């Protein structure tokens, strides 16, 4: 990735992070790669312009001869050379900017062309402060419902339909593509063409209320076979609880407040206003990227969601430590 290296150098190498899970310099998607290429072009042209201006300024300040100033009462005169200089400067600026504009248009066209042959369609619906994800299939029984994560097969163009249930959000997975707003009352869309397998991170990029900061989602780009395996697993209902602790947790989940908001496929818990938890334990994080998925973090979250993500819509329902333990054990079975 020579281009990437070039940008890293241009941007004071030690600071730029070109290998991260959430970086615009990653270029792991078609649009992301276009960004890296176009950004490099802009950087070079802009750096040249900056150099011309600052060198010009320094030379002008250090020049000490043949001044046309008040001291010789020639302060209204200008050297004849300045007229062609202005013409050259104007031509240079206009040419440079026109070239950048054309480069921008061409890249935009290339991004738009990606959209024509999507083979995977999913809908991401934003809520304060989590993402609802639904994979569509002509066969309704093969529709997958999940939350705060998306999986994509590498090399397959995917169309992401974007909706919002409350305020304006913006879906940004910088490694793959630019951002797109999710606006209540409108449907927008985003085309993703992942080119490199890996684990990435997306985040809400439009201020959407108190927990805008903790509204991320995990993105997994994997081989087609891995994607199919994941998809098949997502189609399964949740397994029945086995051990006594898990059974107790299942009991709490289905009889206490949990099930009025959350859905777990194959159980009586069928709430629709909070993230679907059918395969909760197979995800990488809890509460839209707030905490990594570990038993300890699940327990911490259940004990007091407001302490982990203040202002979110999951109330502290006053679970006892035993109940937290049981629920954590049960949720851990939802692979």
């Amino acid at each position, binding site marked *: 990735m020579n281009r990437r290296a070039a940008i890293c150098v241009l941007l004071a190498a*030690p600071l*730029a*992070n070109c290998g*991260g*899970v959430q*970086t*615009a310099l990653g270029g792991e998607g078609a649009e992301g790669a*276009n*960004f890296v290429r*176009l*950004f490099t072009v*802009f950087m070079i042209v*802009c750096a040249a312009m900056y150099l011309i*201006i600052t060198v010009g*300024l320094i*030379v*002008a*300040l250090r020049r*000490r001869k043949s*001044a*046309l*100033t*008040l001291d010789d009462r020639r*302060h*209204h005169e200008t050297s004849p050379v*300045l007229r062609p*200089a*202005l013409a050259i*400067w*104007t031509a240079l*600026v*206009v040419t440079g*900017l026109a070239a950048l*504009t054309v480069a*921008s248009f061409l890249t*935009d066209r290339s*991004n738009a062309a990606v959209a024509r042959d999507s083979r995977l369609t999913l809908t991401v619906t934003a809520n304060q402060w989590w993402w609802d994800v639904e994979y569509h299939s002509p066969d309704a029984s093969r529709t997958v419902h999940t939350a705060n994560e998306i999986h994509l097969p590498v090399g397959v163009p995917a169309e992401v339909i*974007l909706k919002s249930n*409350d*305020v*304006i959000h*913006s879906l940004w997975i*910088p490694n793959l593509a*630019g*951002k797109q*707003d999710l*606006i*209540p*009352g*409108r449907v927008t869309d985003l085309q993703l063409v992942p080119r490199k397998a890996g684990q990435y*991170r997306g985040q809400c*990029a*439009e201020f*959407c209320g*108190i927990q*805008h*900061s*903790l509204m991320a989602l995990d993105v997994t780009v994997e081989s087609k076979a891995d994607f199919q395996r994941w998809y098949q697993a997502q189609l399964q209902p949740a397994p029945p609880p086995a051990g006594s602790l898990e059974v107790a947790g299942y009991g709490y989940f289905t009889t206490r407040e949990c099930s009025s908001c959350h859905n777990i496929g194959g159980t009586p818990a069928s709430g629709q206003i909070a993230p679907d938890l059918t395969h909760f334990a197979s995800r990488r994080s809890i509460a839209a*990227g707030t905490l990594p998925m570990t038993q300890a973090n699940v327990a911490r979250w259940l004990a007091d969601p407001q302490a982990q993500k*203040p202002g979110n819509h999951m109330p502290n329902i006053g679970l006892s430590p035993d109940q937290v333990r049981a629920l954590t054990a049960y949720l851990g079975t939802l692979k």
Partner: protein
Amino acid sequence: MTAAEKAKAPPIDVPRDGPELTGAELQRRLARTWDSPPGLIGWLSSVDHKDVGRRYIVTALLFLALAGALAIVMRLQLARPGNDMVGAARYNEIFTMHGTTMMFLFAVPVMQGMQIYLTPLMVGTRSTAFPRLNAFSYWTYLAGGCLLWVAFILNIGPDVGWFAYPPLSGPQYGIGKRADIWAQMVTFTEIAALAAAVSLVATILKQRAPGMTLARMPLFVWATLVTSLMVIFSMPSVALASGMLLSDRLVGTQFYNPVERGDALLWQHLFWFFGHPEVYIIFLPATGFISEIVATFARRSVVHYPIVVLSLVATGILAFGLWVHHMFATGLPRVGYSFYTAASIAVSVPTGLQIFCWIATLWEGRPRLEVPLLYVIGFIFTFVIGGLTGVMIAAVPLDLQLHDTYFIVAHFHYVLIGGAVFPLLGAITYWFPKLTGRMMSEGLGKVGFWMIFLGFQLAFFPMHIAGLNGMPRRVYTYPAGMGLELPNMLSSIGSLVVALAVLLFVVNMVKSVLVGKKADPNPWNAPTLEWATACPPPRYNFAHIPMIDSRTPLWDQGKRMPVVHGLRVEDRELLLTSVLAAEPDVREPSAEPSLWPFIATLAVTVMFVCSIFSPWAVLFGAVPVTIALIAWFWPKSPVPDPEPTIS
């Protein structure tokens, strides 16, 4: 003096300035006529543009300090990942207050304050047009600022961002009165800005000294004319937007509610149709400062004056065709976006031409590296980076990645601090003697410049990288391990350096006001008319109205500047001139000091604040406002004096 010579002989009974009445006697009588009444009442009823301008500047600088303190709190919170110094809710309030205060209560008002103070002096007149409206403008601005900050202190300050996008700011999601206070504060400041702009446009077009044709106007006055017209054309858009938001929240009009067939994007169009010109309303006066400072310290007039003027006008027009570039991620049609990409890139052409003209002026001149010019150099080094990143985010494919990230935060701080605050600090240093009668300390000024210039780069350059590394704006925290720790720590350290530098600037100002070197009328040997009168100027600005035949009158005409005679001495009277050629037109009475603008502001404040809580307040609150306005405009004398015309 052709026009004045043709003047009819004035009636003998009215004292006028002229050969028979000049020197100390004239100055004594003019001072009596133009003085404000003594005491608190007199202070509140002053309509002197110098009082209004100074109050604007001082108040705006106080708001700068408050919003700057909030910035430091944010930088401390963001210094480390996962920090919990400031909670989510409080952080959202803080960044909303920071942005709102900086844009509405600091940047635009401080520029208008400088314009109100300087414009009448630069065009050679004794007062602004509509001086009472000018006073009303300041009081209304102050009321709006107090409303916002009192609400913040009472913990009912806005928390929806300075842009207040519905539905987040609408009745369903923006609960409580926080968003209403934001919207009503906007109403106050837009009235204030409109009032000041109207007054400035009229002053510039009709009160220029005889001979100051449009082509001889100082470049700062040109910048003021263009920005004031921009205020007049852009503010109604945000007035409409915030008015509709208030009525959505107060009486359920549903303009922005998609569930009731309103449209959330309508707000963004209206807001940015104001919001983008707003950036140039802040930036163009700064280019005016630059042009004046460059001319004085290069000791020659600005090269290619017509190009600079046309650049100002072109920027003012193009600024209204860019607003959609704030909305590239909203999914509007791609073809439409292309026009806004082209327009947004094109707007950098006139600014590029201005930069050429300034550098060419320094090239042709013999620059003196004093503090105001240092700020101009700092401006070019810094602002050009912001302008070039602006070109980047004009391109849709780049903007979709960079929009709403810290790259944008870096971009607009480079533009607004580099492009407007640096020139402002240079301008304050430059015009400080005119404002206070004393010079600022050069040593402290130089140390302060280098601190703020370097501290700024340390604070804001790493933000470009934080944005590219995936950091969105308006987040109160970020996770470790994404390459964000180092840029954020550097930014936080840099912000402390900037804070110290600003503190040093304030120390320099206070020290210089108290014990600074007393200034002559023209300490920098500058060419424009404001330097033709004392530092600080007397109440009446000029004992005689000068006549101009050059762009740099003090350099070309020197001490032998011809003047106009025949203005009344016992009454406040101005000379109006024609719009293009500035030929003497009529003499016009100028308003006396009055308490009514202040009382009208009180009435308006009661109406606006109460209408946050009940729509009936608009009805009942209109009564005291009407009474105050009737008293304000009540004719002083039923029989007008006979008015001989001049030509």
